[in-house]
């Protein structure tokens, strides 16, 4: 009896499929979204916290973004922002305040309506000194709520990047007073207005999100649930997608891409804001000498690195700004790869006959180690002997922050669509990273960046940002290596999965064929 029922169901399903093929003609399923299903995303790391103002790791941020909304969201090309919980926003004539009108009829996943008081509370959490976004929100002077649907934010100075700042995960909107919970309790049972809500969380194993029945976009999300599983080993993640155990592999290794782009799995490369850098500690001799740094920059073959390390994925960098952001300037020319010029530059330096130094790399980071070996071989031709020092990631981070290294690697992605964050973080000594841990300082550049933020005209800002990027290339405290795409491997049944250049992927439009 049971077998017969199953057979009957299978026959019906087969007929339905055949009818669908005959009628609609879209057997690939890329047409009408289908509702339902669970999307399993295998990722390398554990989600640390779901408190918007807490952590700074991608596994937490990308999970949070399914649970919470922000006032504005990045546009899909990453060049601007568009409406989300706020439907309109306007800067005042004196350029010191911004008025946001909230979307009507939005409810939290507990059924309570969203009001301006929730927004005020949320943004104020990010202004506290121990908040992850305090470096972004420090420009906010005060927040007023004239009525339930209006929020007025006053800034300490005219601040063009504010809309982009408010689209950042750390400024996610939570209920006022965390809905009567402490921050720690809220972290375990978060409430948001996003498409999904937390169903279960087994630390170190998996997080399951289910559809939020109160979500404000009617008919969405299509998925019933999303499950994030922690699978640390890249080979295992790849195998799970191939065997159908997982639908999405968050970080496939470049070396595995051709194998993964076959059969019932595909590989998606999306524009990202990631830029990889080779950094030098200018506090240490001989890297305080610009000629030494320039000689090293001239000895680095970006194209060879892309071919070997990135398996051809990526583009040689020009300035330190990613093409994903509007401040990217194609006309900027970095020091070109030229070994003869590099030898000539080194001959003019404080160490004309070369020297011995170390290059710090992260253990287990195959890409970094491969890049290090290429650079090591190249610098040998200049008479520079490079010893590789392998440290685990936490120790590498410590060494960089403390300036306790000679040469190393780092990379950056932006959290906001405005270039302000990266301009400061990667270009200025006071931008949060001491010019990408090189401790290079140029007070003029700080003045230029401050000036740019007070301007409303994007073209005028872009001109200043190009000037800063040129100045960094000229001083060469570091070498921008390449712009990398973000890469995902996923089952062919997954549709409309598209990460933004800021790295986040909103799963509200994603659906699975079933």
């Amino acid at each position, binding site marked *: 009896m049971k077998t017969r029922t199953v057979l009957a169901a299978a026959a019906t399903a087969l007929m339905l499929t055949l009818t669908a093929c005959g009628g609609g003609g879209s057997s690939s399923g890329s047409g009408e979204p289908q509702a339902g299903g669970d999307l399993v995303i295998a990722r390398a790391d554990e989600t640390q916290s779901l408190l918007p103002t807490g952590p700074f790791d991608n596994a937490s941020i990308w999970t949070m973004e399914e649970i919470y909304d922000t006032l504005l969201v990045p546009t899909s090309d990453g060049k601007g922002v568009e409406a989300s919980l706020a439907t309109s926003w306007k800067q005042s004539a004196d350029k010191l305040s911004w008025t946001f009108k909230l979307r009507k009829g939005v409810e939290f996943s507990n059924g309570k309506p969203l009001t301006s008081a929730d927004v005020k509370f949320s943004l104020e959490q990010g202004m506290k000194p121990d908040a992850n976004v305090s470096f972004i929100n420090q420009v906010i002077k005060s927040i007023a709520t004239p009525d339930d649907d209006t929020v007025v934010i006053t800034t300490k100075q005219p601040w063009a990047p504010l809309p982009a700042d408010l689209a950042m995960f750390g400024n996610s909107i939570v209920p006022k007073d965390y809905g009567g919970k402490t921050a720690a309790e809220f972290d375990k049972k978060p409430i948001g207005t996003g498409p999904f809500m937390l169903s279960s969380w087994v630390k170190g194993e998996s997080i399951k999100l289910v559809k939020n029945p109160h979500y404000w976009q009617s008919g969405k999300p299509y998925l019933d649930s999303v499950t994030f599983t922690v699978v*640390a080993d890249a080979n*295992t993640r790849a*195998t799970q997608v*191939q*065997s159908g155990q997982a639908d999405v592999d968050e970080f496939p290794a470049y070396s595995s891409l051709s194998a993964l782009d076959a059969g019932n799995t595909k590989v998606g490369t999306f524009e990202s804001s990631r830029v990889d850098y080779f950094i030098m500690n200018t506090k240490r001799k001989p890297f305080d000498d610009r000629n030494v740094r320039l000689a090293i920059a001239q000895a680095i073959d970006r194209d060879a690195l892309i071919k070997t390390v990135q398996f051809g994925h990526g583009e040689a960098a020009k300035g330190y700004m990613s093409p994903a952001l509007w401040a990217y300037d194609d006309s900027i020319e970095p020091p070109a790869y030229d070994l003869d010029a590099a030898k000539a530059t080194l001959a003019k330096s404080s160490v004309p006959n070369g020297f011995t130094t170390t290059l710090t790399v992260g253990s287990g980071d195959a890409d970094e180690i491969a890049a290090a070996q290429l650079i090591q071989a190249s610098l040998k031709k200049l008479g520079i002997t490079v010893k590789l020092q392998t440290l685990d990631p936490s*120790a590498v*981070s410590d060494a960089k922050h403390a300036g306790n290294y000679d040469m190393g690697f780092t990379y950056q992605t932006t959290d906001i669509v405005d270039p302000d964050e990266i301009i400061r973080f990667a270009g200025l000594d006071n931008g949060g990273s001491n010019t990408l841990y090189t401790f290079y300082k140029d007070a003029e550049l700080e003045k230029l960046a401050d000036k740019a933020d007070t301007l409303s005209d994007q073209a005028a800002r872009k001109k200043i940002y190009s000037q800063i990027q040129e100045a960094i290339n000229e001083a060469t405290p570091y070498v921008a290596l390449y712009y990398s795409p973000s890469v995902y491997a996923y089952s062919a049944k997954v549709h409309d999965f598209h990460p933004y250049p800021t790295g986040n992927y909103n799963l509200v439009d994603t659906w699975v064929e079933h």
Partner: protein
Amino acid sequence: MTAYVVRRLLLLVPVVLGVVTISFFLMHMTPGDPARDFLGDRASQQSVDALRHKWGLDQSLGAQYLHFLRDAATGHLGTSLYFGSPITHLLGVRLPVTLLLMLLGTVLAVLISVPLSVLSTASRRGYAATAVRAFNAVVQGMPTFFIGSMLILFLGLRTRVFPAGGYPEGFPHRLWALVLPAVTVALGIVPLLVRSLNASMVEISRSEFVAFGWAKGLDRARILLHYVVRNSSIAGISILGIQVGALAGGTLVVEQVFALPGMGSMLMTAILNRDYPVVQACTLCFAVLVVLVYLVTDLVYAVLDPRVRPS
């Protein structure tokens, strides 16, 4: 006998204290900052310092150590910096996974090693013995992560008999998901076990009581199983007991490869993220486990061989 067990249990205290003390100072002396790891590169030094204060990491190392000892002695293992959960809760979820994996691994190691050793002993210089030696050499030459990945590739992906890692819901599914990891763990100790069992079996088969068996006209199978295998089990058990430390260490890699939410993968995550309290708790658990297994091994040894009764 009871006095012996009590004395051995008391010895557990200095051993475990030594292990956790060494791991405490090693971990804290390793460069790296859990607060910086948690808040990310972009967080201000002020935010990082505030979190360090909240976690008590701004106190002197000595004060932190005394704090840890006092808490551990009263059964308080604290809260994980990385996972944000009470460690006793995390251990409650993860310890059973690892224990089950180690148990299955041990059972499989015995199930693989004993027949191979018997085969090798029975054939002496024949093809079977050569094949077993070759198998041993190949398995010993392969690192655990490679064996694990190959098993996933062939039995998880190609044939789809087993899941490609992960730990599904429901006990039968979980047991099934643990088969490949357990085989991987087992293969890590099989070569050593086979070699020592084989050596012991060869030696025993040359002894007088075996010669007496032959003289009595007993058949070959009876001599092998009842005289040789049974007596060589004493050597096997002591080797197996010593290998439990290696088995526990092996779970670090195996759980990582098979995405199992056990103690090994938690310890790995904790070390990489400088989650000091979790590292301490896991080291404590593994130390107690290994010492207890050694004790049980010695007791079983005494039961099997009346000549070595502890006094």
